[in-house]
């Protein structure tokens, strides 16, 4: 039995489903991300776990007991907010000690615990300051320390890094992951930033329009997306619409693509072939590798991203995106004709509802 279980959870706002038939098991000590565009229901789900929103139906069980009837202050679930939500009238130390005071922990124990968590977030020397005297990143560390001080059964993080600078975000997400693994605390992390979700999670839950699209390990989500939404929301994917024309063959826009196994599809079925830009090789001449797909196109855009350069190539009127790395590339110029090549394994085929 999983540590935290959500079963058939539904939530409606004015008749519209914000979260629909949500089922999820979360193992003790793991870090699970809820990832999706804004309005997908990820924050609503988190707030239902915290107790700030009521379920319309379904159950949430924590360590075997139903927590739906339990008020938020007795759930023993810590929360970190996007806006930090530190108490402005209290010093850092008082903020961190607050939860322990509510639990009527003895004073000596409180002091010791506050020191421990402040050390964990590396901000011992700010204890006597007030929140407004700290930077955003420091405030969020304190908020994290405050939530951890009471040793909650589950830690919820609601877009904790969204209000911070890009640089601070990257550092802090590493810190969050480090502390989470050190304490082995069951954590749910809500974000709309795919890079954030992929880099720190044990498991990613991709959500869209109140529904779970896919649950899986970060690599799984990226390499084998279940739905078109996941494929395009996580990373970039070229989409070729076409019809199945033979054994492992799909005709898209008058070009025949050979793909990996098409078991489970009917002949003549409409499908979409998804190819990630990094799996496409760019060649000046057609020196076709055996079995690979090869299409001709003309370079329309060149965007430099540092480690890679992204090309926008016009293939029979369709824009195809391909990434080239600095190491293996001969210079490419605008309007240059070239060949895009990719192996059948790089093609993922999905059915299209007609």
């Amino acid at each position: 039995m999983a540590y935290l279980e959500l079963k058939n959870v539904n939530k409606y706002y004015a008749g519209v489903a914000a979260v629909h038939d949500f089922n999820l098991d979360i193992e003790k000590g793991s870090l699970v991300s809820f990832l999706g565009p804004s309005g997908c229901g990820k924050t609503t789900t988190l707030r239902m776990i915290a107790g700030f929103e009521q379920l319309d139906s379904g159950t949430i069980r924590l360590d075997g007991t139903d927590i739906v009837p339990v008020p938020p202050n007795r759930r023993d679930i810590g929360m970190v907010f996007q806006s930090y939500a530190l108490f402005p009238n209290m010093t850092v130390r008082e903020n961190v000690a607050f939860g322990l005071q509510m639990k009527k922990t003895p004073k000596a124990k409180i002091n010791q615990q506050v020191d421990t968590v402040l050390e964990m977030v590396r901000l011992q020397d700010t204890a006597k300051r007030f929140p407004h005297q700290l930077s955003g990143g420091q405030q969020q560390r304190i908020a994290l320390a405050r939530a951890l001080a009471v040793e909650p059964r589950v830690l919820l993080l609601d877009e904790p890094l969204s209000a911070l600078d890009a640089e601070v975000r990257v550092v802090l997400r590493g810190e969050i992951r480090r502390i989470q693994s050190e304490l082995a605390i069951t954590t749910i992390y809500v974000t709309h930033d795919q890079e954030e979700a992929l880099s720190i999670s044990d498991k990613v839950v991709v959500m869209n329009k109140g529904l779970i699209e896919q649950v899986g390990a970060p690599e799984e989500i990226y390499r084998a997306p279940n739905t078109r939404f996941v494929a395009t929301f996580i990373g970039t994917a070229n989409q070729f619409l076409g019809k199945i024309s033979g054994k492992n063959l799909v005709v898209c826009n008058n070009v025949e693509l050979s793909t990996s196994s098409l078991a489970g599809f009917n002949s003549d079925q409409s499908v979409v072939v998804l190819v990630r830009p990094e799996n496409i090789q760019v060649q000046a001449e057609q020196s076709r590798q055996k079995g690979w797909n090869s299409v001709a196109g003309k370079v329309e855009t060149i965007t430099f991203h540092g480690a890679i350069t992204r090309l926008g190539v016009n293939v029979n009127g369709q824009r195809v995106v391909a990434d080239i790395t600095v190491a293996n590339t001969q210079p490419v110029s605008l309007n240059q004709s070239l060949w895009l090549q990719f192996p059948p394994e790089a093609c993922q085929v999905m059915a299209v509802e007609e």
Partner: protein
Amino acid sequence: MAKSQSTQTHGSSKKVRPAGWQIFMVAFFLFYMLVPIISTYAFSVATRWDRTILPEGYTLEFYQRAFSASYFTITLRNSLILSLSTVLVSMLVIIPTVYWVHTRLVGAKPLLDVLMILPFGIPMVVLALALVQVYNFPPMARSPFLLIGAVVIYSMPFMYRPISNAIQAVDANVLTEAGQSLGANIFQVLYRIIIPNILPGILSGSLLVFSTVFAEYTLTSLIVGARFKTFPLLLVEFTRINGNVASAFSVISFTIAWLVSILILWVGSMGHTSKAKTI
């Protein structure tokens, strides 16, 4: 326009000389505000002041008469009781209401805003007479309790506005949720988190209510009259007997209002200074 231009040409580091009309406006404002107060002070110590520009002589006799007036202490006490209980009741009603509306019943806020203008729209004579007729049974009939109830209504906007603005400035919803997730119940959230953060609003509301109620005449006179004589009643009584003594009463009333204001501000700033020391 003129101001922004001069700021631009002189730059922000140099002090901008105020224009003539600005000096005039400030002088006019001070004149308008200060002349009545200064005149009242002067009249309270003047021997005779009807044939000359300045008083002909000065005396403290009227203060002596004021302090030795038979009802002096008791009216002062009644006024303090009335003002302080009004402040207290008003806080107890307004703080939880404003908090509740801001966190759980956001839709009701416009309604509350309109309700809080109503006391300004109802003539006090009408309010007083209506209350006296409705609450004509003991223990309410013409009692200080009824009076407190009435002045709470009448002074409510003064308490509501500053507190509402203060709570708007802190994100009460998120602070509440943060408190709850740390195990605090709703009373602990209010007492430990919300109230300390809106304290400046509560203080300025209390200040406005205290000084308004301390000088309240109409409701007191119509609802309780001589049964619970307050300081303004005594003052008005003396305007019919001796203007100089009435002026002395006014000065005493100002002074008390100022002292209480300073006291409230001092109490309010204590929290801040003690914080500053711990840094």
